[in-house]
Every structure is written in C-alpha cells, then in structure tokens.
C-alpha cells in the first residue's frame, strides 16, 4: 500500500462519511484493556473523560487489570500517570505487564489527601490519556470525587480509581467489582509447585454508558 493510501485510510477518504454517525449523542472514546471479553462488556473499554472505579479485596487482580489498561494506553503512544500513595508499584512488574515506563509519570504522595490533590493537578494539566489513582485502601468520606470527575471531563482523561471497596458512588460512570477469584497453582505430586495465576470474576456493577450487571472472568497469569 502506498504512503498516500495509508494516509487516506487513517484520515478518512473524501466522501467516506457514513451517514447516521454524527457526533451528537455518540459514545465517548474508550481505552481498551486488551482483554477482549471485558472490552466487549464495557462497550470498547474504559471511557475517556469519565471516572471508573475498580474495587476488590486483596489479591483479586485489580492491580493487574489496571496495569493491563495502562499497558495498552502507553503502547498506543499516550502518556499516563500513576498516583501511588501506598508506594506499591513495582517497576519491574509494571514493565513485565507491558507498561512503557518512560511514558508513565509515577507520583508517590505521602498521604491520601495529597494523592487526591495530585490527581486533581494531573487532570488539570491535561494531555494524559489515563490517570490511575491506586488507593488500595478505603479512603472514607471525601468531597474530592465530584472535583475529580469535573477535572476528568474537562481534560478528556480516563480516570481509573483502584480501591479495596466501592467508595466513589454516583460520580463513577463505570464501577467494576471483583466479586470472586480463584488462585491457580501449577504442579502437583512429585513436581515443583508454582503460583500460576489468578482468575478473577469482574462484575460491572454500574455502567452509565451501557449495560450493567455483566460479569466477566479475567484470567491473569504470573510472569
């Protein structure tokens, strides 16, 4: 294919507008997670300009799922930010998950209020494809969610909040909850046992952009 044809394919050919696909009322753009079943259930992935909440107890694969979205976003050439008040990100695990570390801004606030403020600053700056706020633990009552939602809408940034239990409430356009999980161990009698992975059942408990109550099993493997 010639370079001109490639350009036309990307930009759209003259007269190639399909009728009935006007911008009014169209769904917002999405960030795919790379997990086909989940992306299908979410109508394309995690919505830009909206707040998505991903909650689940310890070792249910929430961080792995956030890494999957971050990996796809950085591989698409976008810049992301990872706000990490618990200082829990392991760079080598993130790199193994496919995240382009050079396109990742890692912010390590010392406390949760600072993390909320840092997230607001990042959203206000604009230009980030995805901002992950990895709280990991319950935050309690806060008035920050509407502000973060407003900032995400203005910057068209997908904001993903990872918590251990649902807290964001009505501000989240999309809420995913890990309802159950199974830890897979390989090996058996006479063989060395290894941690093989985690199968997590992710339920769409709230979806203002599509159908809620869909459940998907996400299979995560150890590196």
């Amino acid at each position, binding site marked *: 294919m010639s370079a001109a044809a*490639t350009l036309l*394919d*990307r930009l759209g050919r003259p007269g190639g507008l399909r009728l009935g696909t006007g911008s009014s009322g169209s769904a917002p753009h999405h960030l795919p997670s*790379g*997990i*086909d079943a989940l992306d299908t259930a979410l109508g394309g992935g995690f919505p830009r300009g909206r707040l998505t909440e991903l909650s689940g107890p*310890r*070792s*249910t*694969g929430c*961080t*792995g799922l956030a*890494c*999957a979205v971050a*990996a796809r976003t950085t591989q698409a*050439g*976008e*810049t992301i930010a990872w706000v990490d008040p618990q*200082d*829990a*990100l*392991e*760079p*080598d*695990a*993130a*790199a193994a*998950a*496919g995240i382009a*570390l*050079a*396109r*990742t*801004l*890692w*912010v*390590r*606030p*010392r406390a949760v209020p*600072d993390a909320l*403020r*840092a997230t607001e*600053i*990042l959203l206000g*700056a*604009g*230009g*980030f494809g995805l901002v992950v706020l990895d709280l*990991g633990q319950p935050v309690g009552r806060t008035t920050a969610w509407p502000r973060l939602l407003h900032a995400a809408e203005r910057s068209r940034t997908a904001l993903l909040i990872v918590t251990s239990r649902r807290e964001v409430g009505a501000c989240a356009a999309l809420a995913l909850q890990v309802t159950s999980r199974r*830890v897979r*161990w390989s*090996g058996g009698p006479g063989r*060395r*046992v290894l*941690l093989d*992975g985690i199968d997590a059942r992710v339920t769409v408990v709230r979806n203002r952009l599509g159908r809620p109550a869909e459940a998907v099993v996400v*299979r995560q*493997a*150890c*590196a």
Partner: protein
Amino acid sequence: MPRIACLLVPDLPVAAACRADPDLAGRAFALTDGLGPHARVAAASAAAHARGVRPGRMSAAQARAVDADLLLRLRDPAAERSAARALADVALSLASRVETAADGAVLLDADGATHLVGTEAGLAAALTARAARVGLAARVGIGASMTVARLAARHGDGGEVVPPDTEMGFLAPLPLACLAPSPDVAATLARWGVRTLGELARLPAAEAATRLGPDGPALIRRARGGDERPLAPDPPSATVEEAAALEYPIALLEPLLFVLRGLTERALARVGLQGVGCARLGLALGLEDRARDVRELPLAAPTRDVKTIVMLLRTALEATPPHAAIVAAALTVVPEAVRAAQLGLFAPPGPSPERLATTLARLAALCGDGRVGAPVVVDSHRPGLAAIAPFALLPPSAPPAAPTPAAPCRVAVRALRPPRPVEVFTERDGPAFVRGAALGGRVVGAAGPWRLAGEWWSTHGFARDYYDLELTDGGVYRCYRERDRWFVDGVYD
C-alpha cells in the same frame, strides 16, 4: 554606520521603588539615604516634586515641612540593582550586545535587533512594551552613536529614532547641559556665548584643546554625535536575581510569602522575556541577628508558574523555618529552556511541555523531592527495588495502524515498602500459619522456597528464601526468610 539604542528609566530609584511596591505609583513619596529626620532626601516622585520636595537639597524633616502628607521610604539599593538588571534583561531579549552604564541606562546594538521587529520604530516600541512587562516605564532612543541614542532617549518623545545623517539636526537645539560639562568648561563656554550643542559643534576641535583643556575636544566630538569608545558589552549573566530590603523585620510566614511572591513575579517576568523557565531557585534571607539563611530549591522541571514557585517556597520554609525574623530577601532564578516537543499528525496529543513542567514542579512541591518521575527498573536481583528518574516527555509515537494482538493479562505485585516482619509457623513440609500486622491466616497454598542471593561483595548483600503463600485472609503474599526472620515484601494482585 552602527546603530545604537538606549533604554533609559529617568529616575531609577523612584522607578525601582514603584516596581517593588506598585501602590506607590502616582503618590507623593521621597526616598531617604538613612533613618531619622536628618537623613538626606535622595530621590522624590513626580508628585513630590510638584509639591516642592527637592532631592539632594533637603533633609527628611525639611521635606515633611514642605508636605506633611509626604511618604518617606528608605532607599533600597538592592531593589535598584534588580531594576537595573531587569532593564538589561529587556535589552538582552532583543539584542546580544548590551552595555549597562553607571547611571542605569542600557545601551544595545540595534543593528542585530531590527530584523526581529522590522523597523527601528518597532524596536523602540518593543523595548518600551517589554520594559513595561518587568514593571518599568522606560524611554527609548535610537541613533548612530551611544551619545545620540542616550540624548534621544532623554530628550526625545519616549521612543525617538534619529535617522542616519540627521544627528546634527537633532542635537543642535539641545542645551549644553545635556553633555554635563565640568563647571570650569561650562563657565568658559557660557562666557563665549555657547549655549547649545549646535553652537559647540561648530567650534574648531583642534583649537578647543588649547583653550578648554583635554575635555574640550571630547566634548565637541560628543556634540557632533561621536563617541569616545565603542560599545563594551556586559558579560552574560547566568542567573536572574531579585532582591528587596524590608522596612521592618518579618517574623511570620504569610507576610514573608507576600514579599517573596512579589520577588517571584518580578523574577519570572524577567525570565519570561527570554522565553525560558526557572529551573533552580536560590533563596537568601537576611536575618535580624545579621545571620544569613541561604537555601537552594531545585524544581522538577523549568516553569514560569508563580503559584508553583510560591508553593515550593512555602513548603521549604514550613519544613525548616529561619531561626530569626527576616530583614532582607533575595531570590535567584537559574533560567533554563522549557522543553519543547513536536506533535505528530496521528499521535495522540500528550501534555504540553510547559504545562507539564509546571505540573511536575507543583507535584514535587506537594509530594516531596524524589517522589515524582518515571519509574525505573533497578539492575538487581533483589525483588521489590524501585527507582525514579526525572520525567521527560517522549516524542509522541503514532499508534500502530493495525491493532496489536492482546498480550496475556499479568498478575501484578503490590510492593510493601519497607518489608513487613511477620511470624511464620512452620510444619514439616513448609509454612503453615502466618501472623503479622494487618495480615495473617492459615496457609492454604504455597510455592517455594527458592533462594535469591546477591550483592555479597557489598555491604548490602542478601541471601533469602522466597515463598509464595496464599492465606485464609484472602491474600497471596510474597514472603521471604532471611537470617531466621520472616518478612512479607509484596502482595500478588
């Protein structure tokens, strides 16, 4: 024929005081050389002049007697130096060869500057506008020599351009006092009936030396529009400094930040003239006990955002307050180019470099030093290590035309820093029960041990037996045993 521009602030001490305290603009005030009623009035504003205050001839008490409402302020040499340097920065933003005269006038080579702004009138207008940006009302004159440019600035209409070969016509009607001759020479010339530069220029220079002494020919050359020496450019300065002496000691943070905000605004306005940002910040505080508190504040990225720098100053001063009240403050800014990036046609738009720089600086001020950047994989076999590098915006890369095949989703590890000590009860075939802070339970799945050892050649050597343990509390943990002590350093998630 060279072309020289002169940038001049007529009464620099008064202009510097108004620049440091904009509330003084338009008010009747005088600057004194010292404290007390006998201090000499060194400078006075135009409003004070109009009410009869005469600098150099009056004491503070006499000036007050002339005008009871007169504001008296102590002259601030630091603020005057900053104003003079700000004027030089204005010139440097449009020319590379700039000389600062002793009286604060700035002379610049206009030959290399007109291509930036089109005409010499445009250059004069640009210099005036940029001087206003740094808080100074400057006058500009452009001519064939430093003498002509300086006289055009002082006696012109504020943006006077003397075209080539018309210098004599411009200079001729100006009074002799413009060249500030020595009293003896001035008296002799007055006796001869020479009152203007045109009359002086017509005198024969060779004979003037015998009648007026060595100053005579030089004075005549200047009256004809010539210079005694060429432009001598100043060496370039690597920093921008704004300083102020305080009228009274400040012991509270908020009033001090108010002063520092003013210094920051003025310094960043100067930095902004060059189109660069502030990369490093130096703060020097003069204390009441004559000590000095000097500190250097690095920024995560060059920025021109006042709020960010004030936040950084607040954080630094709150963390380690000065031990005495403040009587003087000086802010030094090290300028550096703000990183630029070329956007791609198909690449997603990333953060703009300047906004990102500001964002990084604000985040660094909020989170602390070394807590904002790009994660880096450490070249070590020890699990859980992390490093952070300065974040630089990569050129955007176009997304692949065809979607890449989905990679398998990986289990991530949440690091626990520092590793948490735990108690582990073992049975014959391995760990059976784990107890620790915020975690614990019976082991329901286990893998390991596998030994990791390294860095034995250094003082940080380690030799650990690692286990993956699934507990009844729901967590899957990465544990290790080292010297008969157990730790958890990660959670699979």
